[in-house]
């Protein structure tokens, strides 16, 4: 790593724990130093350092040709990123808020995702950015966007829950030959409880592999992102009722680690799916169907889900708290299932 690195990308080198946001910044910095084909595009990511300051100091180190401040035109610059990827570069596009990815939906689903299918070759392209509620951002700065893309063959979707995974998975995403949507929950960015000492070496986490965040015997919770932490809190509470919960952190939504899910359900016989995304058309439906196909005979109860309610993300705190899934919701569902 160069000596002119800003503080927020040097935590690991200094032997200090890193926040989720710092882990993201470290991954970007290290990949840009490792591979000169990697470059960044996004709104205000250069001189301003990005809305969340992930890329603060990057333009001074890597220059304006590799840290590109774009016009406010998500479709246009995502399309341009696709062209650059065709030519052998490895663009990392930042959506200032992932809610703003919708103008790029056209090019991502119709062009980028179909490239390999059409015989136009792989498109190594990462679109990353902050997602999720709890910050009183209202309907346009709080969405989870995974299911808008989950139905599109040709894309990968990554949604880490820890700094260690965020760094390792982002490095994998940048090195991947497929286009990757990379979601970062804002609630984790600077969360004190999320600081971790990251591995010193070149840390890469494979895309498509879930992890067991907590081992248990009585009930499986499948979840991802911020909800991993909510589920672990709920599991601790359920443990007081002698319910041993297994928490599966998906880490990657596409491709979905079906083996890990099925193996856990076959062990516990009970499945609760928790996601912050809204209920209808959420990933819980797909997971439930896969378990139905692969582990129906092992189920000892209905598959349940705890999700946000079907509504745009509300602006007021009271409404948003009601809208989002809570630890209490997970505990309630877990107790019901455990007694079933």
């Amino acid at each position, binding site marked *: 790593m160069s000596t002119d690195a800003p503080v927020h990308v040097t935590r690991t080198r200094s032997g200090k724990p890193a926040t989720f946001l710092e882990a993201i910044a470290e991954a970007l910095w290290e990949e840009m130093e490792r591979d000169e084909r990697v470059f960044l595009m996004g709104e205000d990511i250069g001189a301003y350092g990005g809305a969340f300051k992930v890329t603060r100091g990057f333009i001074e180190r890597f220059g304006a040709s590799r840290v590109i401040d774009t016009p406010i035109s998500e479709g246009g*610059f995502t*399309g*341009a990123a696709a062209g650059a990827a065709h030519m052998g570069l490895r663009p990392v596009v930042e959506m200032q808020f992932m809610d703003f990815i919708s103008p790029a939906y056209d090019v991502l689903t119709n062009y980028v995702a179909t490239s390999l299918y059409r015989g136009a070759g792989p498109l190594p392209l990462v679109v990353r950015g902050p997602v999720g509620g709890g910050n009183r951002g209202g309907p346009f700065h709080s969405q989870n966007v995974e299911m808008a893309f989950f139905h599109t*063959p040709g894309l990968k979707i990554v949604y880490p829950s820890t700094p260690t995974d965020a760094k390792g998975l982002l490095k994998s995403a940048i090195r991947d030959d497929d286009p990757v949507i990379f979601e970062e929950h804002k609630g984790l960015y600077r969360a004190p409880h999320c600081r971790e000492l990251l591995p010193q070496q070149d840390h890469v986490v494979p895309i498509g592999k879930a992890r067991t965040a907590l081992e248990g015997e009585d009930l499986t919770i499948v979840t991802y992102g911020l909800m991993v932490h909510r589920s672990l809190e709920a599991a601790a509470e359920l443990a007081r009722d002698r319910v041993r919960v297994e928490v599966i952190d998906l880490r990657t939504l596409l491709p979905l680690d079906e083996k890990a899910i099925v193996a856990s359900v076959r062990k516990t016989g009970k499945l609760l799916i928790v996601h912050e995304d809204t209920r209808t058309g959420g990933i819980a439906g797909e997971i439930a169907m896969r378990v139905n196909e692969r582990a129906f005979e092992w189920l000892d109860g209905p598959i349940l889900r705890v999700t946000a309610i079907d509504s745009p993300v509300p602006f007021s705190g009271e409404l948003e708290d009601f809208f989002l899934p809570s630890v209490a919701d997970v505990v309630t569902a877990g107790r019901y299932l455990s007694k079933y």
Partner: protein
Amino acid sequence: MSRDEIEDLLYQGYQGRRLEEGVRRSGFLQWPERAVGIDTRSIVIARAMMHAVDGRGDLCCPGPMSPGPALAFGATPLEFLRQLAHRGTSPAASRAGGLSWTDLRRGLIGWDGPPGMMTQVLAGAALAFAQRGENRAALVFESERALDTGGWHEGLNFAAARRVPLIVVLVASGSAGVGRVRQIDGVARAYGITAVSIGRDSHAGIFATVRAARRRAAVGGGPTLVALEGGPGDDRWQSQEEFASWALTEGHVIEGELESIRRAAAAGVDHAFGRIVKEPGPEPHDALAAVRIGSPPLRPWTRLKSPRPYAGAEAPMEGPGVN
């Protein structure tokens, strides 16, 4: 234009015409209506770029319905016909339709998406050329309908802001009716880029105009917007016969050479027609295999056999449907 370039244009022009005639005679292939008539000039425009076959030349997106520029970038009549007939042997294995496909070694990039999207994509490709300091440029053909779309303006704005080596050809669509390519001076002024119009220009004139734009783009002069005036059925521009006549008059070719070029082009196209008639359509298992890295190409098991309830510890963890 060099003698080689003139011969290429004559050859590719004859190829294009023979293809068109053959498709109309075939009774089972359909030629996109709007491809007719614009190809001669679009071949010239594409030929003015710097084509290579090692992936280091210019890049061309021929547009959705115009095979001409692809001929100039090394595509063959056989590839066109395989695409048109949805043969399993077609460059895109019949997974995608249309007359354009991607072959980055030849500098061809296939059309996909609504009007305007490919201007975004080619702007990004041109950005890569500029970043690496390469003497390369990108060319994209768009229907003038792209002017209606936000996507096109976003792509052009990006290209103009970064001054990338991009040439955008707006082809008068005819059916749009109002000849909006005439508005491009104003559009270009707004984006601070150069605009040129091509109407009843000679092939040599078109070639010189585009070659100059390409030279300017490659040294940091930024994008050029080219308006290709006219429309289907509009015969104001130089025809293949006029071009051939000009080549003879100017002494670039002699009568015998011209006839040889014409015969060679026709023979190649006729041979291609003969082949595609016998070629099979796509085989789904092959055509749809491995289109996603790291994902099994299997069909859902429900398409292969009846569901079989699993019971007992021997139930498979792997198999069709399990990623």
